[in-house]
Structure formats: C-alpha cells, structure tokens
C-alpha cells in the first residue's frame, strides 16, 4: 500500500466513522455510504494534509472513488514537487 493510499484510507475512516477494513480502492464514497457532508470533510482533510487543492467536479478527475482520490492526490503532489521553488 502506497503511503498516499494509507493516508487516504486513514482520513476516510476517521471522517466517516466507517471500519477501515471496509475501504477498498474500487469503492466509491457512495458505495461506502458516506454522506455528502462527510465527503466534503474528507476532501478538506486530504487538501489540508497534502497542501493541495482538490478539483471540484472537474471531468478530468475522478474524486468519487477511493482509487480516483488516490490517483488525483498522487498527481497533484507530483505536480507540486515538480514546481520550481523560489530561489
């Protein structure tokens, strides 16, 4: 399990109160019966943890499934790292 996946599983379990063992990459937040208010808190905790801005209903990103969240975060974290830092 990648560290991003690990962190995202932790955040989902903590914010929604569901059993961490139930979370699989293929599940959507809907499958996991996560309410919309919990879902926006999950997105916020992910943003705050990784210091990124998660897309809002951008058709190029899947933020509905756990796998999609992981891929989105990995992509945004990589983009962040590739940015030239101020000298």
């Amino acid at each position: 399990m990648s560290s991003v996946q690990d962190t995202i599983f932790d955040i989902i379990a903590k914010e929604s109160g569901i059993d961490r063992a139930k979370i699989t990459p293929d599940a959507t937040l809907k499958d996991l019966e996560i309410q919309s208010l919990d879902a926006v808190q999950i997105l916020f905790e992910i943003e705050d943890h990784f210091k990124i801005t998660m897309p809002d209903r951008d058709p190029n990103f899947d933020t509905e499934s756990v796998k999609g969240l992981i891929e989105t975060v990995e992509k945004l974290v990589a983009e962040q790292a590739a940015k030239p830092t101020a000298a």
Partner: protein
Amino acid sequence: MHRVVITGMGAVTPLGHTAAATWNALREGRSAIGPITTLPRDALRFGIAAEVRDFDPLRHFDEKRLILLDRVSQLALVAAREAIAQSGIDFARDGLGDNTAVVIGTGIGGENTNDEASRRMYGENNPRLHPLTIVRLMANAPACQVSIEHRLHGPAFATVSACASSNHAIAQAFHMVRSGVADAAVTGGTEACLTLGAVRAWEAMRVLADDTCRPFCKQRRGLVLGEGAAVFVLETLERAQERGAMILAELAGAGMSADAGDIVFPSEAGAAMAMRRALAEGGLAPDAIDYINAHGTGTPANDPTESRAIRRTFGTHADAIAVSSTKSMHGHALGAAGAIELVATIGALCDGVIPPTANFLDPDPECDLDYVPNTAREKPVRAALSNSFAFGGLNAVLALRRAP
C-alpha cells in the same frame, strides 16, 4: 385577527437599486450573475457571484452616519426608505410609529466589518480594532438602524435562520400586525456576504456552481452567491383602505417548520409541512395557487426535493402551477433571499407576469414541474407562495393573495 396588506416595497439588488428596477430585470429574464469584481479572483475557485454594483453609500449617507453602518445595514436602510416612501405612510401621525415593528432578517450580519477586523488583527498584526466594530457587525444592526432612522418604537429585532432569515422575519412581522401586537411593520431581509472569507467557506462546502445558476435543469451545478436587501411596509387592510393607500398585495399566511433531521440535506416532508401551514393560515385552497417562487437554489439536492414537496402538497394541481426560481437572476442572497423573492412574487401578483427561471437548458426527469424556462409568461396570478428553506432544516413559506 386583522387582514394584513403590503403597501410599500423597496430593494437594492444585483438587478437594480430599486424594487421597480429589480422587477423590470426579473420580468425581462436578465441575469446579474458575473465575475466577482470586488475580490481577487485568483484567490477564488470559480469567482462568480451576483453583486450589487455601483452602490455608492455616500449618495445615501453622510460620512458621520456611514461610520456606523456596515454594507448590510446600508442596503437595508436604502431599501426601507424606498418602501416607506412608496407606502406614503406617516409614522408621526396619530402615534403610529409608537407601535410599528421592525423585523429585518440576515443570515450573517456585518460580514464586511468582521472581515476587516480580522484582516487588521491577524493579517497586519494590528491589535487596535475600530471602536464601532461591534455596532456595525451585530446581526440586529440593520433592524436597529431602520428603527432609529424612522423613529419606530414597536418591537424591533433580527431573525437569523440562514437562507430562511427573510421569510422568518416577514412571518414574525406579519403575525404581529395580524394579531394586533403591532399596528404596522417594516420588515424584510438584507445580506452583504461577499467577502473573501465567506466565499472561500462556501467554496469549501462544494455547493457553488462554476458556470452560472441553473435551477431545476439537468445541467445545474450548484448555487451562485448574491447580496442585497428588500424591505416592505405591512399594515392592516382597514388602515390601508382608510388612508387610501395603494395596496400591492395581501400577505395571507406564513408557514414555518423545522426538519429536525439533517443539518444540510433538505427534507421533502419538512418543506411540504411549511407550505401546507402557509396555505392553511392564509385560508387558501391548494388550487387557488397559480405561482410559486421556489427556493430553487440550483444545487443537486434542493431542486428535486423541493419539486417533490410541491407535488406532495398540491397533488395534481402541481402541474397547473407556474414554479420559477429567480435565484437564476439575482443569485442566492442568503438571509436576503426571501425578501428579494417577495419583490418577484408581488410583481407576479400585480402584473400577471411570471418571472422566468433563467439559464435553463434541458429538463431533469427528477424535476417535473412547470419551471417557466428563460422567458417570462403572462398569466393571471390569484395567489402565490414564496418558499425559503435553510441549512439547519429550517423552512419558511409566505402565502400571498392579489390585492383586495
């Protein structure tokens, strides 16, 4: 119990700085939604809103007075002056002002003042806050300023119930005039919520649209924030007739309910209960209603739930009712929403014109009523409802009848 009528209305909205200008824009189907001009757009995710543009407070208030007034109070005061002038009511006569109520709703209150104080303190490390910060930001400031300016000594207070604040305010004022607790009332709602902090907080909820507000249609993507104020003069039918006032509409009933369920997800049953109570109090049969100004935020959750609630309340008559969301044009002004929408509802009653639901593309099978898409429609309106539903599961519905 007295019959209660509306004899004056005033408004400052993204569509115009008077009630008449606002109504003209509504019947033309003109939308005031556009790029935000007063905030740094690169700090915002989408950066659209319905702003009250070109409002110059110095045209309305001298500098000494202005220092006491957050934008939320400025908008309310200007709207109140228009309403009172239109009604032709004289509060000084026969001690009427001694028992005239003022109830002005706001969801947030003096948000600009709060934002400015926070910026000084946390952004500039400046510990000195303006000494009038409190009197500007308190949520009751708009009601108090109206009461002070017009010397109204009846019950005066604010109602705070998020997006239902206006309708709760108007309901309180209505019930006071109806029962005789107050002789007349100045009531409505105001909001000036377009600060960076407030808009960012709405963005974080992920309920804002990135394109525009498209209530009830398939392509709707959320709500668009607005701002503004609308204020009305309520009095008894006897007084209005006796002094020969022009009556805009009769306020027949107000229905309120709390879902007592989810803090954000709307309830069909709660909304229907408020509509039923408004009809019952107004002595209106469901088939007397020709128009509903919907809450119609344009969010995925509200619009189907509200549509089902209307169906549940009206049965087969639901298909004969014109339902529109004018938030598609003036945005969602939160605590001022119900008051601005009452301008639209009164316009429909007076002129027999239904303001449209603008920006409508394709129908959504989950929303199956007549939403008057994009173009206003001529239709006589005998009676109408205006719905407001708020976060917290709070519902407040006004029932109006054409002027007697």
